């Protein structure tokens, strides 16, 4: 039985993601873990997170998990979700300026205030709800129709320096990178665990992914 470790570093509720992973692939052993050794022994790793970037990085640095995640990013399939995606960038402008794990070179920026849609309606922040994901070819999109809607809730977005790592974009109102990939690392801004059928399919794809793009 293959194993997936969901990293628990005190940022948010991990039951949803654990339940969704279990539902998506009943043949996989889902573990919520705090311990570096358990993370390093798992076949795959999920790095979730909600809340503020500064708290997230403090928790990772204090627990020593920053180095563990950097190590995982070189060795086995890793899925970052929401804040777990943003933390993979070089830095974020949230809380002044916060350094990230720098696995993807680039920045995390706040949506500009007072953006409008094409009809002149004010766009709300946080970007909350179901929005279309424009995929670029990657095995984790297998069996997910192009432009499917996933559930988002965030006020900051990733802007990688290299466009080659963008695995999907979403418009709000301008296109931003809602998924990043590089070798065995994949990261999404939306919540697959809350995105019903398409979300479960993405988790299933990840749980059977060999880390090759």
């Amino acid at each position, binding site marked *: 039985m293959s194993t997936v470790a969901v990293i628990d570093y005190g940022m*948010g*509720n991990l*039951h*949803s993601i654990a*339940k*969704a992973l279990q*539902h998506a692939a009943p043949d996989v052993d889902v573990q919520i873990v705090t311990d570096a050794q358990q993370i390093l022994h798992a076949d795959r790793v999920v790095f979730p997170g*909600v*809340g*503020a970037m500064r708290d997230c990085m403090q928790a990772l640095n204090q627990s020593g998990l920053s180095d563990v995640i950097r190590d995982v990013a070189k060795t086995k399939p890793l899925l970052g979700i929401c804040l777990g995606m943003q933390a993979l960038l070089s830095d974020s402008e949230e809380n002044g300026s916060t350094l990230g794990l720098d696995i993807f070179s680039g920045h995390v920026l706040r949506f500009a*205030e007072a953006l409008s*849609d094409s009809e002149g*309606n*004010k*766009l*709300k*922040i*946080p*970007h*909350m*709800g*179901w*929005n*279309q994901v424009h995929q670029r070819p990657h095995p984790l999109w297998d069996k997910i129709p192009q*432009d499917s*809607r996933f*559930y*988002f*809730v*965030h006020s900051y977005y990733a802007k990688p320096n290299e466009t080659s790592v963008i695995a999907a974009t979403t*418009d*709000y*109102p301008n296109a931003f990178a809602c998924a990043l990939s590089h070798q065995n690392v994949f990261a999404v801004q939306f*919540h697959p*665990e*809350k*995105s*019903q059928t398409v*979300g*479960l399919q993405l988790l299933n794809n990840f749980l059977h992914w060999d880390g090759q793009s």
Partner: protein
Amino acid sequence: MSLAKRIIPCLDVDNGRVVKGVKFVDIRDAGDPVEVARRYDREGADEITFLDITATHDNRDTIVHVVEQVASEVFIPLTVGGGIRTLDDIRRMLNAGADKVGINSAAVFNPEFVSEAAQRFGSQCIVVAIDAKKVSAQGEANRWEIFTHGGRKATGIDAIAWAEKMVSYGAGEILLTSMDRDGTREGFDLLLTRAISEAVSVPVIASGGVGNLDHLAEGVITGKADAVLAASIFHFAEYTIQQAKEHMASRGIEMRL
């Protein structure tokens, strides 16, 4: 094409059963919350909200079990409101599998609770529920105030100023209920909805008064709501969620179909 507007069915839960009080009429039983939630998920609900109206504190655990069961098989956002007064109440609901909690009267009695909650758990999971009622006389400029105790107790607080304050305290979303319309099936208070939605930067969910599918569409088109919440039109299978979404889409609203 961009962000879709959301339809959120609301389940009023009393002692583990879905109920719906129609104004001036007895509360009607609408079934087992887990089964109802399952059906709404299948029909394409964008989120589900549970409002715990259980009167006695002892029976509060019931809603926790309902959320646990639903969260283990329904993978869309879940919100729980009703009786959320402490950080520990929030933690229990989030641990049970809720994604957001609705804070209503506790915010009115102690606004600091909202900022504490947002700091601890993040704004993304803090929905402030506002019950508003029109207080301006005919001919006067429209004015709405916050009411507590199911619309019976006036607070003297202006609804728009209150919504702005709650957002500045960290609310990630506003659930706005017109107490004039709740249970009437006459449609949302569109002027109220629009006034609040245009005043705040965060998403606003319109609630109170839905009697048909055009009401849902009007909430978005005229009321500028980001999401619409309804209970009774879905509970008694008058309309399915799917029908509601198709109708809204036919009115030119972007929906997840």
